């Protein structure tokens, strides 16, 4: 029931309560309640648009930053990842397998602001042993959506 609702919303956060009720066969009241509860339980975190910023004049620099850290004896990676996540420039934080430990998505106004974040904030955090910064050059797909060529092909009229 909750999953049915989430699947609709994940695809289209604009879907109305009435629509979701029809799609899932639940009453509007139940849908409303379930969504409210999911928001309270932090299952639904936020409703956001997937934006193609390249189509808008906007000076934004995105970087992927690999971070090697020394896990803490008690909390492992969690407390250090939590500290890094506090910075507002940090969009996403993941613990990953491989040559590094944490992968960050960082957004800044300019390359300089990202560089400052790395040299002045990130490397000063206790436990951070090394970083590698990759500036993003171009985005092709965002959150499952193609940035170019995703408009779809127009269907041809056909008799059937």
């Amino acid at each position: 029931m909750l999953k049915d609702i989430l699947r609709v919303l994940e695809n289209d956060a604009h879907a109305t309560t009435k629509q979701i009720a029809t799609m899932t066969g639940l009453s509007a009241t139940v849908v409303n309640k379930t969504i409210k509860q999911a928001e309270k339980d932090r299952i639904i975190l936020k409703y956001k648009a997937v934006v193609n910023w390249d189509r808008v004049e906007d000076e934004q620099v995105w970087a992927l930053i690999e971070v090697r850290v020394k896990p803490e004896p008690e909390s492992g990676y969690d407390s250090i990842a939590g500290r890094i996540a506090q910075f507002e420039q940090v969009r996403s934080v993941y613990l990953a397998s491989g040559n590094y430990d944490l992968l960050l998505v960082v957004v800044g106004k300019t390359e300089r602001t990202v560089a400052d974040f790395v040299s002045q904030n990130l490397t000063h955090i206790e436990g951070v042993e090394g970083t590698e910064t990759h500036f993003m050059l171009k985005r092709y797909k965002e959150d499952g959506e193609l940035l170019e060529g995703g408009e779809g092909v127009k269907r041809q009229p056909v008799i059937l």
Partner: protein
Amino acid sequence: MSDKGKGRKKEKFISGRVNRLSPSGIRKFFDLLQSMDGVISLGVGEPDYATPWHISEAAVKSLEKGYTMYTSNSGIIELRQETGKYLESTYGVKYEPLEEILMTVGVSEALDLALRAIINPGDEVLMPDPHYVAYDSCVILAGGEPVKVPTTEANSFEVEPRDIETRITPKTKAILMGYPANPTGAVMSKEKLLAIADIARRHKIMVLSDEIYARLVYGVEHTCFTSLPGMKDNAILLGGFSKAYAMTGWRIGYAAAPKEIIAAMTKIHQYTIMSAPTMAQVAAIEALKTGESNVLEMVEDYNRRRKIIVKGLGDIGLSCFEPKGAFYAFPSITVTGMTSEEFSEQLLIEEKVAVVPGSAFGECGEGYVRCCYATSLADIEEALTRMKRFVKKHRK
């Protein structure tokens, strides 16, 4: 510039058989539609998805490798094997890939081959009415006579076994049916299919079961006709990839039947087609091997839209029985007092919404229109808003 005299002369060359085919009732709507802007189309009956990329990628890779030649007439052996495996695991019916499966150019070719392989001049073929637009024409082209078996909304557009039996004559050769159905979205219960199987057995009639929409069912289980006891030897299963895997443009389908029938169909196929498109066959292999999750995801999405359109049509006063298959809703438009053609034409002109008149699918489709809901939710909602205005204005 027109030269009517000349045109008439040329028409004399057209065969009697082709002249007998009724001009498609849908054609003029599409001509009109083409000339208009801002139309929301619930007309075209195909998935609104592009083919899942991994399937397309398999074909692209095959082209890069140079797989650009004919395949064996019957189709790539691996594809026939995968199709056999799929039919067995999905419906429990076992076909021998080498002799009992033929890959065709869409299910359309499979249907044409099946009819031409079994029909002698004057043979009668029973079919539920309303039916897919090509059924009666293909029977006529094969030299047979279509015999319509009326179905009604009261019976959820399921064909009644007794209505079939009362129309059987010494000339009856076959029953042709497609469930889940285009244009109604109807599905058939297993009980009724068993009763039809019994009739076919007793009267020694072949059943052609067009199951192109088999995977698009909602809350019910599809029964594959040839999986019924004894029916593998008495029926031709027609299937394809277009609807389940969103592969309409690839033109790839198949027939599965007793080896004598497949051999006869292959004869026609090899002289007229040679082999189904190679890259489409490669893509179909990929679809069967790894496309199941795509099918389930699309079905789930169609189902959401199905519920929206059925409820929406009911809310605006167009009563609509619940279609449990395909991606069509088939609401009654009799509250407007219009014929289905008038309704469709006026709706297109006044509100720029394209639907297909039910009468295009046979006499029993009169009073209904076909609305394909394989289009975006936003378009469905907007179409419903416009139709609401239209129905309110024309309600009798």
